[in-house]
């Protein structure tokens, strides 16, 4: 490989960007951009706005549930709140924020100048953004009939036949259907883009076996998107046909099947959890090694375990349906498939531990959040094993125990890792460091708030409290636990506000980051912070999984050990 460009040659030497332009020009630039970094940032900012909205909805619900028989919000409002909270957080926070980071990082990490299809990329973002706007427009446009409600109130998995015209008059359910359907179109577009970019645009020398694990996990996630968004889209179209053309797929009063909807929804819905969590694993695979100062332990096993998770996750969906009367045969099968997925997941946790083992661990804010992720993901996995035991699940499903379990995954694992990713890549994206002191306050506040809320949320579930109740009986012994859970929500809110403040303040006043503030090893740290529009002046070429390690340690390059 004598013709390879040395990594030093990729360092950018172009002059600083031209002076600031008119607001209109800046706006026009962002609205029409095809640059993967700007689209990625728009995804992230859009998701953060919805994160605040979805978070406020959660706080309102927690105020209502702090004491029994509270009248803070009406039952109708409460039902809309949990529907909007769930739909927002899954489709308009989780998906866009993860795709935002993917969009931003993947070309930089594989040494490409942009995604494979820049126009498709912009289209995907704008159609997803339109979906989210449509969902919230339902508050204004949803009451097609007098008294027919505004925002959807059918729950985020919208079980039939509650979505039928007779139980959901007006247009609120239609807004929900359209919003989810459009977000799915955008998601598939981005997934196509990630697959094409990863397979076709890697720089010279970057074999599949040398790709950063982050890119591997995004590749797997994207393949899962192809398989899972299709049944969701099909189900939404069938639901619209039921509501407007008079078909009877899910209309039980005309012989349709409520269980059919559950199958369609969960064959999307369960892999969706992995679609959300694999990118979080992806961040951990980059951040934990850098702050342990060691290469990731068992790279091939990590990639293989992720592929296994991808495949197995397609066979576990009906563990959401252990109580719908599938019979002992199906219950046994889905118990086994669900338990098996804990094996590759366990491999990942052990490999992260082995990466830490023998390292020199630096407790930066990014690393603190990653450690929080490890700890909480362990617990979420263990409560997941409890739920996979279908007889135990007959007690726990649809109770607050389940709510606690999946928030442990979505907040304790995924959101913690997203915060970690912000602290890690913010310097690359803006050229300035996030304030570490504020970051540590953010971490500890959020950690305490998280554990107050979600540790204690398991208990009312074990004591018989079902989910989706706007209030509860005073004599069941649930009040104290609900009070603690609600107080934790306030602490988490405070932590999140600190994070927003830190992001804004550091953008103007943060320390200058430089190209490589963390002494890291992947290609994105070889270009300037923020990277120029073309990413790399010269296409880099690599000889190992950690090109910048090779550059910094020419006496002991990684390639010797692959």
């Amino acid at each position, binding site marked *: 490989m004598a013709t390879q460009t040395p990594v030093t040659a990729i360092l950018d030497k172009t002059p600083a960007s031209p002076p600031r332009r008119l607001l209109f020009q800046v706006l026009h630039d962002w609205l029409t951009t095809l640059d993967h970094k700007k689209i990625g940032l728009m995804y992230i900012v859009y998701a953060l706005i919805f994160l605040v909205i979805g978070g406020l909805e959660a706080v309102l619900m927690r105020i209502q549930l702090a004491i029994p028989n509270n009248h803070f919000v009406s039952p109708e409002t409460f039902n809309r709140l949990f529907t909007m909270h769930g739909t927002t957080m899954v489709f308009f926070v989780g998906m866009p924020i993860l795709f935002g980071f993917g969009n931003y990082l993947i070309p930089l990490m594989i040494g490409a100048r942009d995604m494979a299809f820049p126009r498709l990329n912009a289209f995907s973002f704008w159609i997803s953004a339109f979906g989210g706007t449509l969902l919230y427009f339902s508050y204004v446009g949803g009451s097609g009939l007098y008294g027919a409600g505004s925002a959807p109130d059918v729950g985020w998995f919208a079980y039939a036949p509650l979505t039928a015209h007779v139980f959901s008059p007006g247009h609120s359910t239609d807004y929900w259907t359209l919003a989810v359907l459009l977000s799915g179109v955008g998601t598939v577009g981005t997934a196509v883009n990630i697959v094409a970019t990863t397979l076709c645009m890697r720089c010279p020398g970057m074999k599949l076996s040398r790709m950063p694990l982050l890119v591997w996990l995004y590749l797997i996630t994207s393949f899962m998107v192809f398989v899972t968004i299709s049944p969701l889209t099909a189900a939404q179209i069938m639901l619209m046909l039921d509501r407007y053309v008079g078909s009877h797929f899910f209309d039980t009063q005309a012989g349709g099947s409520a269980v059919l909807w559950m199958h369609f929804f969960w064959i999307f819905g369960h892999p969706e959890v992995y679609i959300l969590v694999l990118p979080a694993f992806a961040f951990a695979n980059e951040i934990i090694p850098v702050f342990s100062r060691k290469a990731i332990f068992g790279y091939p096993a990590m990639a293989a375990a992720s592929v296994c998770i991808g495949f197995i996750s397609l066979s576990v969906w009906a563990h959401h349906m252990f109580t719908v009367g599938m019979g002992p045969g199906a219950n046994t099968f889905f118990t086994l498939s669900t338990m098996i997925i*804990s094996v590759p997941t366990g491999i990942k946790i052990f490999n992260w531990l082995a990466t830490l083992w023998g390292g020199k661990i630096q407790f930066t804010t990014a690393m603190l959040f990653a450690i929080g992720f490890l700890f909480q993901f362990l617990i979420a996995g263990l409560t997941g*094993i409890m739920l996979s035991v279908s007889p135990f699940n007959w007690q726990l499903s649809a109770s607050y125990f389940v709510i606690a379990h999946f928030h442990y995954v979505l907040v304790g694992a995924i959101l913690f890792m997203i915060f970690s990713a912000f602290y890690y890549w913010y310097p690359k994206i803006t050229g300035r460091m996030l304030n570490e002191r504020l970051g540590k306050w953010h971490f500890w506040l959020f950690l305490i708030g998280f554990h107050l809320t979600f540790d204690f949320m398991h208990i009312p579930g074990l*004591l018989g409290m079902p989910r989706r109740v706007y209030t509860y009986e005073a004599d069941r012994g649930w009040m104290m636990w609900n009070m603690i859970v609600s107080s934790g929500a306030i602490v988490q809110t405070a932590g999140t506000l600190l994070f927003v403040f830190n992001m804004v303040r550091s953008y103007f006043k943060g320390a200058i980051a430089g190209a490589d503030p963390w002494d890291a090893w992947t290609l994105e740290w070889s270009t300037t912070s923020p990277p120029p529009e073309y990413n790399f002046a010269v296409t880099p070429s690599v000889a190992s999984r950690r090109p910048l390690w090779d550059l910094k340690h020419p006496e002991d390059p990684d390639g010797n050990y692959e």
Partner: protein
Amino acid sequence: MSTHRIGSCLAASIPFDSAHGSTSVFSPAATPAHAIYSLSMLVLSITAAIFLVVAGLLVYVLIRYRSRASDTEEPTQIYGSNQIELSWTVIPILIVVMLFLATARVIFATESAPKPVSAMDVTVIGHQFWWEYRYPGFGVVTANELHIPVSDPQHPTPTYLTMSSADTDHSFWIPRLAGKMDLIPNKINTMWIDPPATGLYLGQCAQYCGTQHAKMLLRVYADSPTDFAAWIKHQQQPAEENAAVAEGRTVFQHNACISCHSVAGTVATGRFGPDLTHVASRDTIASGAIVNTPANVRDFVSDPSHLKPGALMPPMHLNDHDLDAVTAYLMTLK
């Protein structure tokens, strides 16, 4: 079994008391709930052990391998080890196999249990937002308060519930008796319960079914055999004819009440709402949400959605005089 003891300690650390009114999954009072409880203790013990090992390792590496101010060089780079990775693949697989076999046994023991000839059948139909109970063997129809006989383990008389829904999905969940089972329109599900001790067992709808999902409460009364026989005999009687409340009966029968409610032996044969033949013999109204007193019944009839927003019964706009009369009539339906 010692692992069971660890699980029991975990469960005991939180007040999952079995006192009256408890809905804790850790105070089982019937065979299906007991089977789940024993299995859950095994699962809790295994997961607690895994947690202690892995979290312990995590804390250990964080302390042992923290970077120190004196560090100047990078640590030794280790890229992996096939033996180690094999071991943490095989050990979890063994745990999964063990747990799966223990689980499969309980699944089949509960769901494929042979139905004894001495079993009693009850049909449960979920409605927005109340429960209909039909006893096909006795010709009895009632609502919201399920009476069953206790089941002596020597001569079991379990109750088999055949379940469906009249509208949206619901779920029948009495944590102390059994796990939940959904009531789904166009689908027949079954479950069984066999509490050996008399008493009141509480629960509530566990599948979101609409506006008033929260106040679709469940009450199961396990009666002694003689009490149960007396209860059935009473329920089989038509409604009591009491001349003192003739006016209230007229108001009831001349309004839309009879379109939805049944009172056996009268012209009221509606099927949409709860059967009222013996409504005054129940402890609660509005699906367990309200104590059954004359004042509460009057309040509820005057404006149901004031006490239970989203209830499908409309306000009948009766004047005070008619309200009093109807309330008096309903309270005689013992």
